[in-house]
């Protein structure tokens, strides 16, 4: 079956009805305003009755040229636009970018406190992102109450984020060379409170949905993928792990000392929507374990490297040291130069392998920041996953892939 010819569809006033030899098919445009398409996805479905024959996702509605903008900002400034791609997990984006820039600069002495806080906050981000997924995915399937449980918990995480970084959504807290600011007084009590409270809430949420007969009926056996297909379609993260391949960048190519944390990589073997569902629920528990371990370590010391050519000096020093003032002025007015080169850095974002191929031409701005957006490949796989299912199942499949359109369209 060839892909849909959108131009022909536009010219055809007969709302997509096509007479076939045996069965007639109907072309239906699902989205971009459909609630289950999470904002801005449009899927052109060719239907035989209520069964999907072909599906062609149309993307680009949220294209904001983030890659182009990043090329026109200083290395440090670009973190703000990088954050805005995958808007449910902004800190995973900036971590990826920051690690890539640090690799180009040859910085390998990030202070332990900054490394632990990076791990802790990317895991908090993962929890927040998975909670949004859990709430909205179940809402798509018709479950109401779980949404409030999930968003109540997410609100606690966002409060911690706001307390520490000053922003609820786009934290931009990581910097090349460490962190923007240290955590405030009273942070440990907040995180202790969260760590103590979370398992019980997660158990509550699992009790509502995991064995719920409606959810199980809607998800089991829908959108099945084999290992070969998952690899061919470029899937990573939970959709790949749901087919039984424990590929997780945190284990496969560790960064930020992930190799020293004790956590499992949850997998399932069925490869269907329910397997992806359970993988994410289990991942939330593992993230909690990592946060707990990070809290137990929590070393003291600085949160940025001691390099005045990269990190501006503290404000108190600027007030009585001329050299510090010059460094501060240079960093604010023209940034710093990064040696020529290119590097591919991958981190495990809540959605999968988020990679950045960063090229530097030796200047004070990145020459090119190429994303490997996991949601992009997952959305593309709809072409394979949707056909053969009912329209209602397409909703379940989109939800189980958890695409974020800031990430797909950038």
């Amino acid at each position, binding site marked *: 079956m060839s*892909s849909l010819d959108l*131009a022909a569809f536009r010219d055809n006033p007969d709302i997509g009805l096509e007479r076939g030899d045996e069965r007639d098919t109907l072309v239906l445009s699902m989205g971009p305003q459909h609630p289950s398409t999470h904002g801005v996805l449009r899927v052109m479905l060719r239907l035989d009755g209520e069964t999907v024959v072909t599906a062609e996702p149309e*993307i*680009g509605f949220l*294209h904001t*040229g983030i*890659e*182009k*903008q990043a090329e*026109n900002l200083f290395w440090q400034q670009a973190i703000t636009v990088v954050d805005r791609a995958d808007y449910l997990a902004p800190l995973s984006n900036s971590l990826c970018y920051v690690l890539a820039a640090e*690799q180009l600069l*040859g910085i*390998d002495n990030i202070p332990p406190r900054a490394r632990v806080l990076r791990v802790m906050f990317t895991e908090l981000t993962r929890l927040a992102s998975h909670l949004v997924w859990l709430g909205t995915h179940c809402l798509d399937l018709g479950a109401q109450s779980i949404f409030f449980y999930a968003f109540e918990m997410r609100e606690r995480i966002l409060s911690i984020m706001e307390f520490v970084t000053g922003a609820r959504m786009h934290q931009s807290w990581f910097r090349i060379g460490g962190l923007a600011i240290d955590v405030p007084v009273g942070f440990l009590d907040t995180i202790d409170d969260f760590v103590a409270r979370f398992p019980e809430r997660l158990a509550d949420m699992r009790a509502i949905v995991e064995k719920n007969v409606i959810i199980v009926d809607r998800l089991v056996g829908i959108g099945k993928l084999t*290992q*070969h297909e998952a*690899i*061919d*379609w*470029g899937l*990573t993260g939970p959709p790949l792990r749901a087919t*039984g*391949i*424990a*590929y*997780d960048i945190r*284990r*496969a*190519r560790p960064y930020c000392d992930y190799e020293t944390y004790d956590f499992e*990589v949850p*997998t399932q*073997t069925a490869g269907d929507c329910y397997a992806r569902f359970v993988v994410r629920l289990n991942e939330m528990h593992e993230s909690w374990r990592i946060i707990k371990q990070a809290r137990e370590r929590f070393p003291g010391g600085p949160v940025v490297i001691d390099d005045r050519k990269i990190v501006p000096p503290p404000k108190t020093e600027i007030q009585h040291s001329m050299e510090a003032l010059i460094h501060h002025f240079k960093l604010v007015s023209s940034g710093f130069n990064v*040696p020529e*080169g*290119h*590097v*591919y*850095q*991958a981190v495990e974002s809540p959605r999968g*392998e988020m*990679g950045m*191929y960063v*090229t530097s*031409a030796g200047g004070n701005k990145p*020459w*090119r920041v*190429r994303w*490997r957006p996991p949601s*992009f*490949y997952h959305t*593309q*796989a709809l*072409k*394979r996953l949707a056909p053969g299912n009912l329209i209602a199942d397409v909703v379940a499949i989109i939800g189980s892939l958890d695409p974020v359109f800031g990430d797909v*369209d*950038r």
Partner: protein
Amino acid sequence: MPESIKPHPERAALAPLIEALTQAAGEHLLEAVAAEDMDEIALRPGGLLAVIDRLRAHGFNHLLDIGGTDHHPLTPRYEISYHLIAIPLGDNLRNPGRLMNLPRIRLRVFPQDLDPVVPSLAGIWPSANWPEREIFDLFGVRFEGHPDLRRLLNPDDFVGYPLRKDFPLRGLERRFVPGGRVGAVPPVKE
């Protein structure tokens, strides 16, 4: 750059493969380097399919990403970068220890400047379909053999290739024309 390059256990295993790949690329090979993060091979588009064939025979089954870069005003101007990993298939895949330090490789393909054309991999990996369309959309690099080479992120009637370095960041004249948009972007100079 760091003083010492961290030893990657997968590098040693890749050495014979790199040898085979440079042979497969033949006269199209530009260079084969051990970069800091992974081994990479730079080549002309003519050798791409032969190299991909050899890579697939060695188990590189997961095409992570295809990206574009514009090195303007340097020449060759366009770079299409491919990142691949080899995920072993078989038993014990649920054990993350088996998937540590997987072999990775990067191919950098440099098409010619005036009419950039690269062979498409969409027939080999279905996942290559969209990234190739995206590069066509943003850089104007064509992929020979692509089944459906249309713009992906920008609207179909968009003029110009936004991620080229000579495309302006802002200051485009846009005016509304009933029934369609005309003259959105000045044509890009080659």
